[in-house]
């Protein structure tokens, strides 16, 4: 009974995977609309079940553990997956392999759930791979497009390499401590060279998934080449899951290496913010632009995490909520425009507001939130991150972060100017968006505004993060 209560999120996903497999085997030429309908209903049920409360505790001798913040993260991820599934309806109808696409997507999500709940290094490694390998296959879903294959190749080769480095780190940690259990490890770890070496290599694997700067080279290419729904999944869901695991690892398992990782985060966050901004300014393609913007956002999150207090975790998880809604809204608009008109560059967005006011306004609000302009949630997210980062009293880091936020305004506003102020002869004609897309975008907009205006969201996350 404990098993069902604690693992209900994972069991639900496994259940959906089995249903899809059976349906695929028994399939006799059903229409794509039928498939999409069934799967979306399953995802909605999954999302509702995930938001129900879960009991906390450990299973399988500490290999699997359920804790409040992790469960909140899981509910958030399944909501995000549902939103992505809703806005990708049009693309999926054109795509031949709907069942396979969802199988891969839900397997990835399952991997992330297990990763959040992992209680030892073996489980962590296995679930990391489960969340990476299907993702590479998903990137290749534009089967006949040259860019898609190239993106998948870049993702699988670089992720395989980074997970090799991570395994080397894990083997050092194991050699030094003799255990792979997080609880035991957190007691044993000391600041000796072997532990630090192991930790840094483990950090590489995580930093690769977060695309923190020295390991960000795959990001822009994969984002550009992959189909838009996959890009959205990669940039939002995968990174959000990793942030939760990352803060758990840093605060709980490697808490005693604090002096080492503070330095690491300090340097990497500065480099990440600056590089992300500098490259984002010169991008023309919307997907590449959002790739570099997401690298910059990761830099801000690192600033918040380096604060090393309950506030650090709270502010970064709060920022994840904001980032999830804003980025999904932006990608929803991009996917609609790319699907209907095939245009992806910023210059082709000129005059979008004239014919498609709903899409243009959604995009504008999402970008305002990413830039951190007051009425939207992004502003509060950034304030909290800076506040958490400042708790160590190092104002240099905070100043750099604040300056970067100002620079970032330039390129976010450039898109908004193109949409609202520039005239264009052949601007994008009126696009008729389907109901699922409108629902998804509306939920995202409500999410952006509500998380911004209501204090209880932040306080709720704060009570959850006390467990870490």
């Amino acid at each position, binding site marked *: 009974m404990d098993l069902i209560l604690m693992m209900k999120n994972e069991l639900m996903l496994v259940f959906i995977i089995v249903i899809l497999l059976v349906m695929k085997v028994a399939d006799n030429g059903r229409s794509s609309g039928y498939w999409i309908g069934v799967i979306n209903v399953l995802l909605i049920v999954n999302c509702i079940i995930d938001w129900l409360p879960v009991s906390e505790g450990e299973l399988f001798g500490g290999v699997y553990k359920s804790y409040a913040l992790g469960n909140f993260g899981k509910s958030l991820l399944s909501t995000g997956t549902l939103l992505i599934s809703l806005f990708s309806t049009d693309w999926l109808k054109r795509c031949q392999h709907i069942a396979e696409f969802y199988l891969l997507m839900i397997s990835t999500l399952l991997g992330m759930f297990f990763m959040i709940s992992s209680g030892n*290094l*073996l489980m962590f*490694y*296995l679930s990391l*791979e489960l969340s990476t*390998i*299907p993702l*590479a*296959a998903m990137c*290749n879903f534009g*089967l*006949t*497009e*040259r*860019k898609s*294959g*190239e*993106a*998948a*190749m*870049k993702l*699988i*080769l670089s992720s*395989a*390499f980074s997970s*090799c480095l991570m*395994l*080397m780190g*894990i*083997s*050092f940690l*194991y*050699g030094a401590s*003799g*255990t*792979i259990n997080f609880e035991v490890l957190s007691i044993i770890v000391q600041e000796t060279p072997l532990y630090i070496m192991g930790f840094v290599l483990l950090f590489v694997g995580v930093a690769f998934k977060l695309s923190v700067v020295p390991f960000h080279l795959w990001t*822009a*290419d994969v984002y*550009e*080449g992959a189909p838009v729904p996959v890009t959205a999944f990669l940039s939002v869901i995968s990174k959000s899951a990793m942030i939760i695991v990352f803060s758990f690892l840093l605060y709980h398992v490697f808490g005693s290496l604090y002096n080492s990782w503070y330095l690491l985060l300090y340097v990497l966050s500065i480099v990440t913010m600056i590089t992300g901004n500098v*490259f984002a300014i010169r991008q023309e393609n919307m997907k590449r632009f959002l790739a570099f913007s997401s690298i910059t956002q990761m830099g801000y999150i690192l600033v918040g995490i380096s604060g090393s207090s309950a506030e650090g975790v709270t502010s970064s998880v709060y920022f994840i909520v904001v980032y999830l809604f804003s980025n999904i809204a932006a990608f929803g608009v991009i996917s609609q425009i790319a699907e209907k008109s095939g245009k992806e560059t910023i210059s082709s967005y000129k005059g979008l507001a004239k014919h498609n006011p709903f899409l243009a306004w959604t995009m504008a609000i999402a970008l305002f939130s990413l830039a951190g302009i007051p009425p939207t949630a992004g502003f509060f997210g950034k304030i909290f991150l800076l506040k958490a980062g400042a708790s160590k009293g190092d104002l240099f880091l905070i100043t750099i972060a604040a300056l970067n936020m100002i620079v970032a305004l330039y390129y976010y506003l450039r898109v908004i100017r193109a949409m609202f102020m520039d005239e264009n002869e052949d601007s994008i004609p009126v696009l008729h968006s389907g109901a699922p897309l409108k629902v998804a975008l509306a939920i995202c907009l409500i999410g952006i505004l509500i998380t911004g205006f209501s204090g209880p969201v932040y306080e709720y996350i704060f009570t959850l993060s006390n467990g870490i």
Partner: protein
Amino acid sequence: MNSIPLIHFLIVSTALFFIGVYGFFTRINMITMLMSIELILNSVNINFVAFNKYLHPESNDGLFFSLFIIAIAAAEAAVAIAIIINLYRTHSTIDVEDANEMKL
């Protein structure tokens, strides 16, 4: 019984690791790059097994870990080769340098 000291195993695994890293960065054929990755994974396996046998013989954690690594490596290679085959269909080559449509 323990006539070979631990350090010898570590030297072999470190050498394998860097041969793999070198191969990964210098080769342009994707299959060879995958082979380099397998080399790195095997060096990690040697590490795990040696640490388990010499330093922590009381439990079998390291041994199990290396078994799982072998399984995952096979899965990863399967997906990677599928992707490479598809790349061959669109590009008619499996050299990474020819897959260069997207640049900064």
